[in-house]
């Protein structure tokens, strides 16, 4: 069975380690915060200027001055701090943020990522994604393996305008966990009940497959 969005988020949450500062992108990445183990210390950064983001506020307690990068109203946790946008990207560029999780339209086997523009159709802008992918050491992409037409978004080369080059380390989709290596995508795990053959058929890029591929463990 292919994973749903919450299950993708659950799988990615296992990559979050103790004492990590983590930046979560809009969409599936935002859901990751719901599934991080409670016995570890993690602070979530939002690039519009907050560290120590908490859950959504209770009804009636929302504050127009306290939002995340998705413009959603949020709360802060003990130990939180606010700062300006220049300072925020300073801590991103100087690699104080340990893990960046973001969405993508396409990822290529050389680690390139495209997620901001479909020429002539959709131009919403890159927001902070270009700064994040150019600076972060540890980038995990949460995305759907195939588009609505069933075409692979895991490619030999990106076809859309790039957001960053050679930067993605790991990809988690509804079908698989892939690692980007100097030789291309390595298949690490498959979704429960999804065959290796199905993943190969759903992937335009070549996959490196060593031995038995374990199923993802989704609690």
């Amino acid at each position, binding site marked *: 069975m292919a994973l749903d969005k919450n299950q993708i988020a659950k799988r990615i949450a296992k990559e979050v380690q103790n004492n990590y500062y983590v930046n979560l992108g809009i969409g599936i990445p935002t859901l990751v915060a719901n599934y991080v183990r409670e016995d570890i210390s993690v602070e979530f950064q*939002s*690039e*519009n*200027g*907050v560290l120590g983001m908490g*859950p*959504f*506020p*209770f*009804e*009636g*307690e*929302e*504050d*127009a*001055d*306290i*939002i*995340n*990068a*998705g*413009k*959603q*109203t*949020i709360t802060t946790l003990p130990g939180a701090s*606010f*700062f*300006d*946008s*220049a*300072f*925020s*990207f300073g801590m*991103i*560029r100087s690699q104080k943020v340990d893990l960046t999780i973001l969405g993508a339209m396409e990822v290529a086997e050389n680690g*390139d990522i495209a997620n*901001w523009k479909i020429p*002539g159709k959709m*131009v*919403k*802008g*890159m*927001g*902070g*994604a*270009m*700064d994040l992918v*150019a*600076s972060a050491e540890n980038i995990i992409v949460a995305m759907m393996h195939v588009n609505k037409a069933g075409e692979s978004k895991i490619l030999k080369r990106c076809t859309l*305008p*790039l*957001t*960053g*080059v*050679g930067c993605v380390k790991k990809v988690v989709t509804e079908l698989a966990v892939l690692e980007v290596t100097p030789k291309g995508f390595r298949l690490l795990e498959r979704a429960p009940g999804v065959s290796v053959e199905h993943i190969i058929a759903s992937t335009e890029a070549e996959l490196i497959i060593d031995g038995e591929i374990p199923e993802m463990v989704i609690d």
Partner: protein
Amino acid sequence: MINKKVNNVHEALQGIEDGMTIMLGGFGLSGIPENSIAELVNKNVHDLTCISNNAGVDDFGLGLLLQKKQIKKMISSYVGENAEFERQMLSGELDVELTPQGTLAEKCRAAQAGIPAFYTPAGYGTEVAEGKESREYNGKMHILEEAFKADFSIIKAWKGDEAGNLIFKGTARNFNAPMAGAATITIAEVEELVAPGMLDPNQIHIPGIMVQRIFQGEKFEKRIEQRTVRKK
């Protein structure tokens, strides 16, 4: 004490003319100088180049200026929430320079800090890097980006005093802080304007030297773009 207080938004925005380049603080609708934006609509100035992370929504924020076609060019990082913006951009009526958000912030800070240009890794290998110098530092490629040059910077703070000192609240600090003093004239609109001495100097986020005009906004709607809550 050098007094920066002006009486109202009309006085604050004097000198803004057609064709000027204006920085506007805020992220989404959070921390936008909403009284000043309303006054820009009243002034009916045209052909503006606006430097702002976002372009508001269709009926609030910079969306109001877009509706009246007062903006010639937008320099932003993300414009996704505005249908009229997208229409004008795709039809070619509006010139748009999309800039990575961290680069946008740093181009403001560089202007504020008197740095003409800087190298950043953001955008290397993408269309953002086209026509820009690139250079390797510490084994990684970077591109050269220049500080903004703007006629006016219009920002919004929570509290301010007549000396122009500013304090922001929450994530409404965003681009308001790095835009302070980043243009020839900086205008600050505040929710609460107090007499000098009423703010603790230890708590000031932006010193008054960066601000030329300060006024208390008449009313703040402070609209929320994405109201997300949980049940008690």
